């Protein structure tokens, strides 16, 4: 393995200072399931690794009916996947968590790490954006809160400034009249990166869709919102014809590329198919 220096941060302030002082090529280390692979395959130049696992307070999971679900930067994908609350109230998150890597990877990988890696195909991002999640960011001068939908600036890039650290994520409470789904499309079920991922979170009031968010993964430089498709669906009963037109609109809104996993045309087609399917699945909550 390429050599790097290992540092164990005791506090957020300590970790932030190390990030600033050790210069570029310094990376936070939580689960390490991406970082160690990138070091070993020489995909990322890493001189310093700052382990944040000894920092207290980053492993908490809380839920309340007003604030919602909040989890810290050290909470693993596996822990959230197994949480009964996630199974019951956030089937979209549960689907994304259970499809990431393998059980072994999920026992190490953190959701915050998956987000900070900012891959357009990251499984956890579309359902969290569709749910309106926001991220808590620490810096030595203040704390700020950023909607996840505004967190990404490009593939592998985020709004984080040097020395800033994401400490956790809050997902708004799951209302009783909400329906949620995440559909991942790949060539196999396990150990697979998404070819396309579509998340839908919606609210129904007396048979009418009062709000809906559609997030599309792996079909753009960042995870995208299909906002024109959403606008076509709000205020409707989500009948088949409207859903079909909105799915066609989502195909127009995405900006896929061709790569080893699929062609741009195929990805665009799948956005249409999966958007329709995800809306249908989200509605099954009310059936």
């Amino acid at each position, binding site marked *: 393995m390429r050599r790097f*220096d290992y540092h164990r941060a005791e506090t957020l302030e300590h970790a932030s200072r190390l990030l600033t002082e050790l210069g570029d090529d310094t990376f936070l280390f939580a689960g*390490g399931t991406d970082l160690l*692979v990138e070091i*070993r395959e020489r995909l990322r130049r890493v001189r310093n690794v700052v382990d944040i696992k000894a920092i207290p307070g980053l492993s908490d999971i809380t839920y309340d009916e007003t604030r919602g679900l909040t989890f810290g930067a050290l909470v693993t994908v596996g822990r959230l996947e197994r949480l009964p609350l996630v199974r019951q109230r956030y089937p979209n998150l549960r689907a994304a968590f259970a499809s990431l890597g*393998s*059980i072994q990877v999920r026992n190490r990988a953190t959701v915050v790490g998956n987000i900070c890696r900012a891959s357009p195909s990251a499984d956890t991002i579309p359902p969290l954006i569709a749910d309106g999640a926001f991220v808590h960011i620490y810096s030595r001068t203040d704390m700020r809160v950023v909607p996840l939908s505004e967190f990404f600036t490009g593939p592998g890039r985020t709004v984080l400034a040097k020395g800033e650290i994401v400490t956790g994520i809050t997902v708004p409470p799951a209302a009783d009249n909400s329906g949620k789904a995440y559909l991942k499309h790949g060539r196999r079920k*396990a150990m697979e990166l998404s070819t396309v991922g579509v998340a839908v979170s919606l609210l129904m009031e007396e048979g009418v869709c009062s709000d809906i968010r559609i997030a599309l993964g792996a079909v753009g430089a960042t995870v995208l919102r299909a906002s024109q498709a959403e606008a076509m669906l709000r205020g409707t009963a989500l009948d088949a014809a409207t859903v079909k037109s909105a799915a066609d609109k989502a195909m127009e809104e995405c900006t896929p590329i061709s790569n080893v996993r699929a062609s741009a045309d195929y990805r665009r087609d799948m956005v249409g198919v999966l958007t329709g399917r995800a809306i249908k699945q989200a509605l099954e909550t009310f059936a």
Partner: protein
Amino acid sequence: MKKIVEFTVNGEPREMTVDTCRSLLDALREEVGLTGTKKGCDVGDCGACTVIVDGEPVNACLMLAVEAEGRSVQTVEGLQPGVDRLHPLQDAFMRHGASQCGFCTPGILMMAKKLLDDNPNPTDEDIRFGLSGNICRCTGYTKIFDAIKSAAREMEAARS
């Protein structure tokens, strides 16, 4: 930079002096001398290096040895209950021919142990899901699933 790491391997307290860049997998094989845990892909894809850390299966290649400080690691060497006795899973793997080249077997055994510890009567789907992070290029998996189901039945019978 090297660090002294104190941890437990298969119930025994151990101490090792390791380079801080080193993976737990390399440290187990080369510092501790436990070569049962295999290095397949070294990037978390194949599952051959699966060990159980504080009760949870992980890829030893994706964990640094320094992170093992104070933790309990179980490897395939710790699976058998005694020198002359095999774990029911090991026994069933032999009887069912569930191991051919054998390289994936230690990882699959550890994953299967965790599966049966949590779920003594797994369905075919449970086994498939449980082993989805372990790749075998020889057996086609069928004999592995047969062996795990057989071990589950024997362990169930032994309990009752």
